[in-house]
């Protein structure tokens, strides 16, 4: 049995605002095993980026962990004092941030920036050793090590993104968080980065957390998937199950919102309406308002966890999905009821 690297348990992350606390992440639990890649997918505002920031410890000043635990190899990061936590940051857990290509400092060469990272965390590393690490990381992400001495503006967007990945890997972290790693890139670049990520998974033992709204990226890179909706886990399971046989109507709808290049004539389903406000979220199922399956029960009560093999889902009607929902999920009319309920 492989070791659990990250164990998030009943995590609540709130933001303090004038209207009261925004419950951005609410009662979220999941685990990441060693060497595993977990995808977190959902639309914007579902709390996926907040989750990543809480894990690595870079919440903005008005954000705080209200309750729950983030255990990294058994140690609760939320209990740790700032100095010890800082050591963990980047050395144990690193992050490839959203639009990472703009995250490099324009006035230093790439080598200087990666070397600085190494120096800060491993003081006393000599120049030769850090140069060797830089070269090795460059090779790993498919960049020519000779170009490490260039400045960020001499790199194309995709190369800068790869340089950022090299930086995130430099200290050989146990866990890498990738927040929308390919979103700002065009197809060819995106494919190169995805190939790099897949290559890394083979070569390194690091675990990864890939956060994205793009279900295709998740399908290609992840072993398991957490589908988030309005700050909560809607469904979680192995990638084959989530894509092949999901039980949450939201997962089913989200999948159909993406055109697939292999299909010529497909109706795209839009899940009309928008997620509830998280200042005062509904007490029942948060997806009820937009869900074609919703009943009075859904609005009243939060659904309990249901298990289908390795899949866990939070839907009152999970038992009825196979017979009553799946056959009609591909019809535009199924989602129309909610279409009338509001624009976007």
């Amino acid at each position, binding site marked *: 049995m492989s070791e659990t690297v990250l164990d998030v348990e009943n995590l609540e992350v709130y933001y303090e605002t004038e209207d009261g606390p925004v419950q951005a992440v609410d009662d979220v639990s999941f685990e990441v095993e060693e060497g595993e890649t977990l995808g977190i997918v959902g639309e914007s505002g579902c709390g996926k980026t907040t989750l990543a920031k809480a894990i690595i410890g870079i919440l903005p000043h008005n954000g705080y962990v209200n309750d729950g635990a983030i255990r990294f190899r058994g140690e609760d990061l939320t209990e740790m004092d700032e100095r010890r936590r800082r050591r963990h940051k980047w050395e144990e857990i690193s992050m490839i941030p959203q639009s990472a290509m703009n995250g490099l400092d324009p006035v230093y060469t790439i080598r200087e920036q990666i070397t600085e990272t190494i120096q800060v965390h491993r003081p006393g590393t000599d120049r030769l050793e850090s140069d060797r690490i830089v070269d090795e990381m460059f090779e790993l992400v498919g960049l020519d090590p000779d170009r490490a001495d260039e400045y960020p503006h001499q790199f194309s967007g995709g190369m800068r993104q790869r340089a950022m990945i090299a930086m995130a890997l430099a200290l050989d972290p146990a866990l890498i968080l990738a927040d929308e790693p390919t979103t700002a890139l065009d*197809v060819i670049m995106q*494919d190169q980065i995805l*190939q790099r990520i897949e290559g890394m998974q083979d070569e390194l033992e690091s675990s990864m957390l890939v956060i994205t*709204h793009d279900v295709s990226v998740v399908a290609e890179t992840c072993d398991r998937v957490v589908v988030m909706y309005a700050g909560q886990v809607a469904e979680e399971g192995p990638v084959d199950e989530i894509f*092949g046989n999901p039980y949450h109507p939201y997962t089913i709808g989200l999948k159909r919102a993406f055109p697939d*290049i292999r299909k010529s004539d497909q109706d795209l389903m839009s899940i009309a309406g928008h997620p509830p406000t998280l200042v005062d979220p509904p007490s029942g199922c948060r997806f009820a308002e937009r869900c074609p399956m919703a009943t009075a029960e859904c609005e009243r009560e939060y659904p309990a966890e249901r298990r289908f093999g390795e899949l866990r889902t939070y839907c009152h009607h999970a038992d009825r999905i196979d017979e009553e929902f799946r056959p009609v999920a591909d019809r535009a009319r199924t989602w129309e009821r909610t279409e009338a309920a509001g*624009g976007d």
Partner: protein
Amino acid sequence: MTKQILEVDGLKKHFPVGEGWIASMMRAVSGGDQDVVHAVDGVSFDLLEGETIGLAGESGCGKTTTGMSLVRLHEPTDGEIRYRGTPLGEMDDDELAGFRQNAQMIFQDPFESLNPRMTVYDTISEPLRIHDIGNETARVRRALEFAGLQPAEQFFDQYPHELSGGQRQRLAIARVIVLDPDFIVADEPVSMLDVSLRAGVLSLLERMTDEFGLSVVYISHDLSLLRHMCDRIAIMYMGRIVEIGDTDDVIMDPKHPYTRALIDAVPVPDPKADRDRVTLDGEVGNAVDVPDGCRFRDRCPSIIPPEDVDLDQEVYREVATLQRRLEDGTLDADAVWEAAGDTDRSDLASFKRELRAEYLTGSLSGTNEDVVETALQQLAEGDEDGAAGTLAARFTSVCERVDPAVERRADIADDRRVACHLYESDGPTTASRRGEDGVAADD
């Protein structure tokens, strides 16, 4: 027969670079020509009534510049765009005003394309006032309702910042359809929108196309999306169309090696799918100093050797790369000498060995081997130009010499045009009419 709304013929748009005074003084002294970026460099296609065409390609391939030229937000450097038969360049003021009413554009970013100081009502009524169209309130209401912003009156006095991203893009669409245009250029219309909103805006665009009988040019790098939205698709590379045809034909059976690479790079929402991947080396080439011959050749996985050179693609590419590096002076002979550990440059054999280890890993034989050996000898003796010439005489590919026209190919049955030497030219009659790439579609 369906009528053409727009005929684009050899469209070119070049942007000057280095316009600063230092650059211009340097030019005055050296007498050189001004550098230009060949953003669009010979694009031809027709847009039929009610048709949707997708322009796809990597960043910087010129798709947005093409789109902006279509609605005359750019003045073409060369070539012609005809709207219902009349060239845009020859239109008088009245005709141009009519054209501007009929040609509309939807921009990528609804956060930047709307004036933050205008209310929803003003935003939509402004084009009506400019074109002097009456019955304002009713038209504004109808446009908003069509775009799904209901009840319309509630939105009249709102400002863009009060709307969500999806609503803003709907507003941008309402502003476009209020003029009842003929055709629309939509530049990445949903790429800034959140997943769950995309499908909604896309179905609005589809409804718009159907109900108003519009012709639409969609610009996007998202091929899954274009497949979903378009009748025909045009793949662009470095300012040119390299393949254009029926969407299903192009996506299911891409002919141009670039199209194939582009389509193979699209991720699919299915963890079981094991897609083929053609890895493209390098980056899009230099748009200032464009190469002769096929612009894709340096990255092309199917470059064509001369007839009597019988080599594997990989080996041939190695030789071609060596030749290219010699020609453009990017082969660092000093580094090879250094690697050979011979600083006084006397041990020619070890230089050649080192060079082969670095550039030529495949096996050569017969004439090919002899020619390469001769070239390496010349190079070892310091004669770079001679070495380049020796290689060029035997190995120069047709892809390097001849710029392929985007035209119908005899060995491709369906109605598409491809710019690639792998396919047979349809005969001399389709030779270029204008510039390097002037073969207009005959559909």
